[in-house]
Every structure is written in structure tokens, then in C-alpha cells.
């Protein structure tokens, strides 16, 4: 075991991926000598050489598009989008090819590739640097969308993503990059994609979240515990295909559902979770489910961004309201 925060755990996971499989190559903007703008790839080029870890021209579609070719030829590319707000130029490659090549060729080709990107806000970053648009990827058939919220999960899920036979969009909550350290296994370990994690058991309300807002949910849970209210906290970890079983079981148990995330409300991740839970646990619901999410507005520039995100106080308040109904 060794201590790591989320960004060093990503770094450690990438190192293990490179070490354990010669087919793994990594590229993106500024990931080489510079080590990535968040230092997620720090030291990897030094250690594994320019052949395995390299910088390429400033062109996201080119990055994803060439990675498709590399994966078909037998490599396992792990590419970085510098921020999730800059993945859009690659959207055509992702929707039209990454998500489809296996289906289109009836499985005779597959794309073992990972597209990594820091996502989300609350770090007072520039315009376009705080996006949380995971819902649009989750809506594209053929992709897997993974978002860790702890150092331990980040490394294990990343290694599973790299070894998955199918393409994975791996979104890293940048506001948790420098979160408190956690003891994580030193070497190689994988955590299964598609499985949520019950962070805290409880029977009052099911609170579902992932990524950037998990810290706030945990803070709210701790606060509520001091008031003897035990909420069940679920970290989705995989947004698509999400762990329907864990979600529905919990909602059937608690009868109350709150979904928390930072992306826009409408047509967002919360809509799917609430909708699915309602369909499958309707008879168990004691109160209308609730979404506590970003509004359908553009994440404000740094001075006002704090209005955009849900705070532990908001979560506590919503839980208490849910219990009252």
C-alpha cells in the first residue's frame, strides 16, 4: 500500500498499464516532458520513453481518430483530452467510429482504447475548463463512461478500462485531484466496470452521485449521521452501463431517492437514474424522487461558479425535506 491522492493514483495506474503491456501507448497535448497540465502523466515519458508516451499536435479529432487506427492495428492507446471542455472537436470520431466499430464489423474489429479527460468544476478554472457533460457520452450507444471519485477507485477502474476490450471514456474529477490521500495498493489491481459502490449503508434516503460531488455527499452523510440519520450513499462509478441492480435495490429499501451531480439538470444523468428507479421501484417509493444538480445554465466564470455547484448544506437540506414527505 502507498498513499496517493486522485491525480497520483491516476499516474500510478498509467504507469502500471504501460509496464504491464507493451501495446499500451499514451499521447495527447503536453503529456510528455510537461507531464500533463495536472501532472497526471508526470515522469511517464522519462520512464517509458518517447516511443510509448508522446505529445502530438493540437487536434482532438486527430488524436482520437489516430487512436482508432492504432487500436485496430493491435495497440491499446490511452489518449488524453486536456480538459473535457475540449473533447467536442473529437465528438464525431467518438460517436461515429469509437462507439461503433465493433458493431459495424460484427465484432471482427474492436477498439480497446481509453479517452481520459479531467472534467468538472469548482477549481476556479477558465471558461470551458469546468464542463460536466458526461450525460452526452452516456447517451451514445457503444461507449462505456467511467468516473472515479477516490484514489483507490481511480487506479483500479483505470486499469480495468485500459484492459477492457471496448472503448472507455474515463473522466477524472479535477476538483478531487488533490483531495486527501488514501492508502492504495502499490501494484496492479482492477475494479470491475459497471459496478456501483455503496459508500455508506443506510435506510433513510438513497443518495446517488459520482465523481466531483461525492466529497460533498460524503460530507452531508457525515453531518446527517450526527443527527442520527443514516442515508445510503451510492457512488455510481460507471455512468454507462450503470449498475441498475444496486440502484434499484437501494431505492426499494429506502423508498426515497436523491440524485446529486454537477452537470445540467435537464436531460442529465439524474434524469436517467430517477426515471429508471421510478419505473422499477415505483411501488416502494414513499416520496417523489429529487434531483439536486447543476442548473441548465453555463457554468459561470470563476467568480460566480460557486453558485453552480451543490454544497453539502444543499444535500442535507434536500435529504431532510425528503424525509419529511
Amino acid at each position, binding site marked *: 500500500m502507498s498513499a496517493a491522492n486522485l491525480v497520483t493514483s491516476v499516474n500510478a495506474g498509467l504507469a502500471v498499464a504501460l509496464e504491464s503491456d507493451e501495446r499500451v501507448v499514451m499521447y495527447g497535448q503536453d503529456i510528455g516532458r510537461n507531464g500533463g497540465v495536472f501532472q497526471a502523466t508526470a515522469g511517464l515519458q522519462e520512464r517509458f520513453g518517447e516511443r510509448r508516451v508522446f505529445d502530438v499536435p493540437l487536434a482532438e479529432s486527430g488524436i482520437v*481518430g489516430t487512436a482508432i*487506427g492504432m487500436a485496430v492495428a493491435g495497440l491499446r492507446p490511452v489518449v488524453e483530452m486536456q480538459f473535457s471542455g475540449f473533447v467536442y472537436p473529437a465528438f464525431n470520431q467518438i460517436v461515429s467510429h469509437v462507439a461503433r466499430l*465493433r458493431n459495424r464489423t*460484427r465484432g471482427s474489429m474492436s477498439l480497446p482504447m481509453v479517452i481520459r479527460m479531467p472534467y468538472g468544476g469548482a477549481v476556479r478554472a477558465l471558461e470551458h475548463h469546468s464542463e460536466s457533460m458526461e450525460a452526452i457520452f452516456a447517451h451514445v450507444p457503444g461507449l462505456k463512461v467511467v468516473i472515479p471519485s477516490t484514489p483507490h477507485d481511480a487506479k483500479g477502474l483505470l486499469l480495468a478500462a485500459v484492459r477492457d476490450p471496448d472503448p472507455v471514456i474515463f473522466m477524472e474529477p479535477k476538483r478531487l485531484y488533490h483531495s486527501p490521500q488514501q492508502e492504495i495498493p502499490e501494484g496492479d489491481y482492477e475494479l470491475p466496470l*459497471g459496478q456501483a459502490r455503496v459508500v455508506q449503508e443506510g435506510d433513510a434516503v438513497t443518495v446517488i452521485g459520482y465523481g466531483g460531488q461525492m466529497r460533498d455527499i460524503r460530507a452531508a452523510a457525515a453531518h446527517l449521521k450526527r443527527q442520527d440519520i443514516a442515508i445510503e450513499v451510492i457512488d455510481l462509478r460507471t455512468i454507462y452501463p450503470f449498475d*441498475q441492480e444496486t440502484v434499484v435495490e437501494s431505492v426499494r429499501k429506502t423508498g426515497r431517492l436523491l440524485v446529486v451531480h454537477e452537470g445540467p439538470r435537464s436531460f442529465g444523468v439524474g434524469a436517467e437514474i430517477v426515471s429508471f428507479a421510478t419505473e422499477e421501484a415505483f411501488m416502494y417509493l414513499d416520496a417523489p424522487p429529487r434531483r439536486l444538480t447543476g442548473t441548465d445554465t453555463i457554468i459561470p466564470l470563476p467568480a460566480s461558479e460557486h453558485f453552480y455547484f451543490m454544497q453539502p448544506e444543499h444535500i442535507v437540506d434536500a435529504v431532510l425535506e425528503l424525509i419529511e414527505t
Partner: protein
Amino acid sequence: MIAGPLQLLAPDGTVPAGEAVDAYADYRMDAAQLLAAYRFMVSARAADEWAFSLHRQGRLHTYAPSTGQEANSVGSIMALRQDDWFVQSYRELGGLMARGVPLSNYFLYWLGYEAGNDNEVDEFHLMPVAIPIASQLPHAVGLAQAERYLGTDRLAIGFIGDGGTSEGDFHEAMNFAGVWKAPVIIFVQNNQYAISLPRSRQTASNTIAEKAGAYGMRGVQVDGNDVTAVFAATAEAAEIVRSGGLPTLIEGVTYRVAAHTTSDDPNRYREIDEVAAWKNRDPIVRLQKLLRSRGLASEEELQASIEEARQHARDEFDRVEASAAPALEEGFQHLYAELPPLLQAQLSERRRLQERTGK
């Protein structure tokens, strides 16, 4: 308009003399290759014509013909190795024939089955049909660079149309190729139109070949209706890129003599005279002249090849049409290596709907 491009076989079937021709002496097609090229081209033409008639019969929905453009992909694919990556767009039927891809798969695709793209990778090194314009070119560059990483001497060739050069992905692929000096050939089938938009309004550069300079790549313009010129230019480019030289853009100047697809009426946007002029430059007729003048094939043999190709196209289509049967499960089977529970549930639900409603 096509004075500049490399030409090794004139429209009248004669072989021009001159420096350009001499320079390509090492890349001349031999008799067997010329005869093979002819077979591939007439196979493609026959399949194309049959597909058009199938469309009229209501047996095929939309279809995009390659008629008149066969020399481009036949000549270039023949100049490459079987294990070089072939990244197609959707107008490389001739190249598919040259690669040995079964016509049945091609028909299967146009009949509306994904299975038509299920071509044995290790045998054909072929990417599936790519319809989102230009998006296939970065794949070609990635394939090429991966082969270098893996230490093979395979290259990749990526096809695109003249219209496709306007897309951002063309640019990004070219730029990556240049920076990586990737072993890749970008082959632009300049057939003068992108649906209705003429080449002159697609881009303001004089030629498409000259765009290579913006990326530190080589650019070559060839007469795309001259299979021997296409072969020579590609063979030379292959030698260069395989040995670490500059990646090459080849512009094969040709013409889309038919409609864009069966859904399109070209009379809305172009003159019949223009089409007629280009029909006189037909790549198959031109090659026939050479084969005859060289005594490589008699008129009867030339015609027999055509008849054989036509029969083959009919037989293959009938066979495929009779055997193909859509199934509800297909959409689920190959989405992921393993079907996740969420999708298993959707499949069950869909099956249940089918059981309850018969639909």
C-alpha cells in the same frame, strides 16, 4: 484541365514518351498485372451496373456507384501489399476487387447488413466503409504509425473524395502524417464533384495535390483514369513511405460519370456534355486499347471477362439476397464484447414486445 497530371497511358491507348514516363520505368505494370487490373475493373463495373439495375427493380435501396473511377482504387491497391492497410471511403469497389474481398460481402453491406463489413482482418487488412466524410483518414494515419511502432514495414492507404478535403479531419490527418512522417498514403479520388458541388467551388487551391506542401508531405497528381499511372505513382509512394520518406498525397483526377447515389439526379446540377466528354476517357476502354495493341488479349477475351463478371455479380447477389435474414438480436450482439446487464434487460424487453405484438 487535366494537362498536368502524370499520364503513362493516353486516352487513345498509346503510351506517351517523355521524361515523366521514363522516370516511372521502374513502376511499370507487367502483362499479368495489366490483365489482372482489367479483371478487377470489369468486376467492379459489372457489380456497379448490376447494382443500379437492382435498385430500379426495387431489390436494392440506396447505392453509391464507382463507375468511371475504377482505375484509381484498382491501380493503387494493386501497387500495395495485401497486408498494407486499406482504409476505404465508399467508392473503392475496384480496390476491394483487387484486394480479393468477396463481392458477396459488398452486396451484403449495400443490402443493409452490417455483416457486409465483416471481412477477415488478417486476410484483407481492410477498414469498413466510412460514410462520415473524411473521418476515416485519421484512422489510416494511426494504423500506419502503429505498424511502425510494432516494427513491421506495413503502410496504410486512406481514400477520400475531393469534397472530403474540406473537412477538418482531412487537415488533422495530413498534419499528423507530416509530423510523424507516418508510412501513409492519402489517396484523393478527385471525381470533380461532391454530390452537386463542383471541385472548383470546393477549394480555391489550383490542385488538390499541392495541399500536401502545407503539411510537409509529398504531393502527386495523376490521371486517375489511367490505371498504369495510378499504379506507378502509388508504387513509388509506397517505396518512399516504407523506407521512412515523406508521406504522400496522391490526387487521382477522375470523374463521377454516374449519379452520386441512386437517390441523386445529377441533371439538376451539371451539363450532359461534360459527362459525355469524360465518358470518352473511360479507364476500362483505355486499358482495353492497350491490351489489344499489346496483343495481351483478344476482343473475345476482353468481352468474355465482362460477361463473366456480369454473371458473377448476378449470382453473388442472388445468393446473398436469398440467404440474408435480419434478426432482432443483431443490434445487441456486437455492441460490446460482452452484453452488459442493462442491455440484456433491454433485449429481453424488446423480445417480449415482439412476442406480444408479433412486431
